[in-house]
């Protein structure tokens, strides 16, 4: 018996002690999700999230002693088989555009997510089968959006192209134009990756079938005309335009570059940034430029919108699809495994 006690004593006592944990508390919040968070949009203190096959989620951001996301909506936007990968928010009308990976764009008043009495139909467009990106064209009570519509010829699958369609959302019935949007530019590259409309100009990434490039279109009396084409050596993944510049996120770990305009809108120079990273999403606000780089996490630069950006913080997040700035020093990141919030 004594021998047994002796043996038990030996096994219950060890020399090794655990170390004191070391942490900086810069990762301030995690909200796990079953599908990826592909895109995030912010309207005041409400965060909207494109959550793939789970539809969309909306959160009220509570930022008292400790920052938390208070879920106020989660569910489908329109159908049971949707896969929401991109959101656009019309600030004036309060309409949320949700883009499905393989099907349609849907539009919903944000208020209808939280208020069943708000009512209103939500009708999807049936024009094209692939509308993965869009940009707000006119942000009014009846907003207009431009959407890239990828098309495959039903008789010849090799005949593929992308067009840019314009849709006016009629306020009374809450739907995207059901009978096909008006095509404003046709015959573009099927591998077109992104578009952005800013200050009367439309910026399109990878529209040329023959060479990676950026095309910039001017609008004149409703007609889009090519202003110039900026050719590249690497396929651009995403583009974001600002007052005096546009920022292009490149594929294949080629980083991004910022093109500068002169007073007449001509390209006069460029900066190269973030070499070694593949850029998936670009965001600029609060004088911060935020680049989401997939496995590379998130890169944050101080940027006034026209000078050379200066590095501010590198965030080792989960696989980062998109990110935005909240409250000047917090970065909300949409990742493969949910939402992560960091303080910089």
């Amino acid at each position: 018996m004594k021998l047994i006690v002796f043996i038990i004593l030996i096994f219950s006592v060890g020399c090794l002690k655990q170390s004191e944990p070391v942490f900086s508390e810069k990762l301030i919040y995690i909200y796990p999700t079953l599908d990826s968070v592909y895109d995030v949009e912010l309207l005041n203190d409400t965060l909207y999230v494109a959550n793939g096959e789970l539809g969309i989620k909306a959160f009220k951001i509570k930022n008292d002693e400790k920052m938390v996301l208070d879920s106020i909506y989660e569910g489908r936007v329109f159908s049971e088989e949707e896969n929401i990968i991109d959101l656009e928010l019309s600030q004036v009308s309060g309409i949320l555009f949700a883009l499905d990976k393989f099907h349609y764009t849907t539009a919903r008043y944000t208020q209808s997510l939280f208020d069943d009495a708000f009512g209103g139909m939500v009708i999807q467009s049936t024009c094209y089968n692939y509308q993965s990106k869009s940009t707000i064209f006119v942000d009014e009570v009846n907003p207009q959006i431009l959407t890239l519509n990828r098309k495959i010829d039903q008789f010849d699958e090799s005949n593929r192209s992308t067009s840019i369609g314009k849709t006016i959302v009629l306020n009374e019935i809450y739907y995207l134009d059901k009978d096909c949007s008006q095509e404003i530019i046709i015959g573009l590259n099927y591998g077109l990756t992104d578009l952005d409309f800013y200050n009367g100009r439309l910026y399109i990434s990878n529209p040329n079938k023959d060479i990676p490039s950026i095309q910039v279109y001017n609008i004149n009396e409703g007609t889009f005309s090519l202003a110039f084409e900026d050719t590249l050596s690497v396929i651009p993944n995403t583009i974001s335009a600002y007052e005096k510049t546009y920022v292009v996120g490149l594929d294949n770990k080629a980083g991004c570059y910022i093109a500068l305009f002169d007073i007449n809108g001509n390209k006069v120079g460029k900066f190269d940034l973030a070499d070694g990273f593949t850029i998936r999403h670009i965001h600029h606000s609060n004088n911060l430029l935020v680049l989401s780089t997939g496995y590379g996490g998130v890169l944050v630069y101080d940027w006034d919108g026209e000078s050379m950006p200066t590095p501010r913080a590198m965030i080792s997040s989960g696989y980062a699809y998109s990110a935005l700035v909240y409250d000047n020093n917090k970065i909300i990141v949409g990742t493969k495994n949910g939402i992560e919030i960091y303080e910089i």
Partner: protein
Amino acid sequence: MFKFIISLIFSFSLTYSVTIVNRFKVPVYVSISTSIGYDENFLRLSPSDLISANKFPSMISDSKSTNSMVNRNNIGLEYGPYLFKDHETRVKLNLSRNLYQSLSKKSYNKYSLSIAQHLGPFEWLKLSYSLLPELYLREYVDKDNPVYDSSESLSDFDSSTVGELYTSSFFSTEVMRIQYSHPIPFHKSYYSLSYSKQKQYYNGEFTEFDLDINDFKVGIYLRHIPHVKISANVSKSVADNVTFQEGSVSTQTKDRGFEQSRMWASVIVDERYIPFFDELGMSTSFDKRAFSSNLITDPLHKGRSHSDRKTSLWVKKQISNKLIAKFSGSYRSRTTTSIEEFVEGLKSFNKYDFFIKFTYNSNFNIYY
């Protein structure tokens, strides 16, 4: 506890005629060994990590290379006080020092102590303890310190900047084992049962990976075939992530617990079957580890499993009465499967090593 041991020894000593003092006056056997060898992938880097490490040495702590010459030195002392009539008692102490030429940080010490008590023919009870105070793994990003605030001198981020987020990862490990062996109806053959408890604790930046591991093992040792030794064991381990959900964000979002099954076998033949050498041996092992995490925030462990295979081959030559030379080589391959492709690329690796080892055996007898 000390009183208990003394009283136990004293009570047995009354039974026999040899005095207590004389029972402890026995020789101490010494075994000193040194080996030198080459480890082709001493940080166990995956193929994709090997490419990154060559490009960004900061992820392997500026190691000169991903391979290394290795020097292992060991001193073992064995002491067998005569405590019980017709029953041997063996106390063994081992101290070892392993040095890596490419990265001094990887060098480590290991200490072990065992007490084995003979109970009957091929029947032993053995208690052992080993401590490895600090073993360097490699550089990892500490997820509790995930933000690198850029310094003013930095002109831009590039893929090497991620080195600023890396922190050295070390762990200490302690193993306590109890083993019982008993003969089986084959000449000189026996089986063994053992249970061990292992603590595997990391440095402060990585405490979210701290483990307590319980291991159960059954082994069989066949010695009835002349000139051939066959050994095999199977074991089952259950690892509990003791810091899981303990407070920090990383402990909330990761669970490193796992279950592991292991099979090991070896065959050794003596000089009758091989020319020149005195012993030829081969061993092989197969480990299957399944991580238990089902957290959606834990892509590193959720749905992940390892298959780990290792094969070793060696020959021994008695150079003189006291000096033995051993040449050995091994190949290890770990394949990771995961629902996340990046985890498979991160945790799979292959490596080989070979060593030459010289062991000098002697004894000193200070009593007579």
